[in-house]
């Protein structure tokens, strides 16, 4: 079984760049936008060229979804996680284009145990998504909650 990740494994100050990558295709950009963000610049190269983005670019919300998949593959799927209350801030820094390959880097800004929920800790992370040219495309700060090792293993024994 894969090594699980607990609150204890996420120390404040640590920065990790995950090996997982996400290749971006024109088909997926258009498919996502057709369903969830049908603005012309996300639907065709022509309309993208005519817009301020200068070419077909992924919906910012598609970029968020791809960032989530990078978190999923990077660590969350192995973590004993309890979800996220939200994000303080998110910046879309550069358009995400067909042919881009995305990567994620995570820095733990703060890690503390919750007084209201014993055995649960909350981490404040900064996640930066980079493209293949190492340019940051999404920069966000938010929180995720995790069980402590002790709490999770007590739960598994019960």
């Amino acid at each position, binding site marked *: 079984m894969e090594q699980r990740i607990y609150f204890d494994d996420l120390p404040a100050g640590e920065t990790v760049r995950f090996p997982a990558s996400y290749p971006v295709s024109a088909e997926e950009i258009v498919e996502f936008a057709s369903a969830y963000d*049908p603005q012309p610049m996300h639907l065709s190269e022509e309309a993208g060229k005519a817009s301020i983005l200068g070419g077909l670019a992924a919906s910012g919300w598609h970029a968020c979804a791809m960032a989530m998949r990078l978190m999923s593959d990077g660590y969350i799927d192995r973590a004993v996680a309890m*979800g996220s*209350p*939200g994000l303080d801030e998110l*910046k879309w820094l550069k358009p995400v284009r067909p042919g881009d390959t995305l990567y994620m880097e995570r820095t733990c800004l703060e890690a503390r145990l919750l007084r209201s929920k014993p055995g649960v800790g909350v981490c404040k992370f900064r996640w930066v998504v980079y493209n293949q040219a190492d340019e940051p495309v999404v920069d966000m700060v*938010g929180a995720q909650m995790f069980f402590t090792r002790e709490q999770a293993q007590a739960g598994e024994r019960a």
Partner: protein
Amino acid sequence: MHYFEDITVGEPAEIGTHTFTEDEMIRFAEKYDRQDYHLDPEAAKTGPFGGLIASGWYTGAVFQGFFARHLLKIADDLRRAGRPVARLGPSPGFTDLKWPRPVFAGDTVSFRTTVEKKRPLATRPGWGAVHFHNEGFNQKGELVYAFHGVTFIERRPA
């Protein structure tokens, strides 16, 4: 969209209501957010939420579908009335995004958007920043999603 000058601050617009199905929640999770409680109804029963819940980014994508269509409809109505349509610029990002309660399969969420403030952009002549407060409420009237977004909108030509 209306020109920046013609946008009214403080009027909420109801932009859509959606009933979340287990199938669509799982389809999104398979692609973008592979945590058990978004992907596997059986495993979710014993998870931290007691059942399958939507990825927060899926709720965000559904909101954006309504928001984009709301803006596109305003543009269509203006065009039909023979009036000029202001261009939309990119969004630089958002702040204070919250997922205060899970969205379970079968929940019906109503979304609304309110312009909370607007200001001309000193750095980009001809454009203004419009700030939206966006919210989603479930069938019990409980807040399940909220954030403060910004979009650049063209100013009326002098």
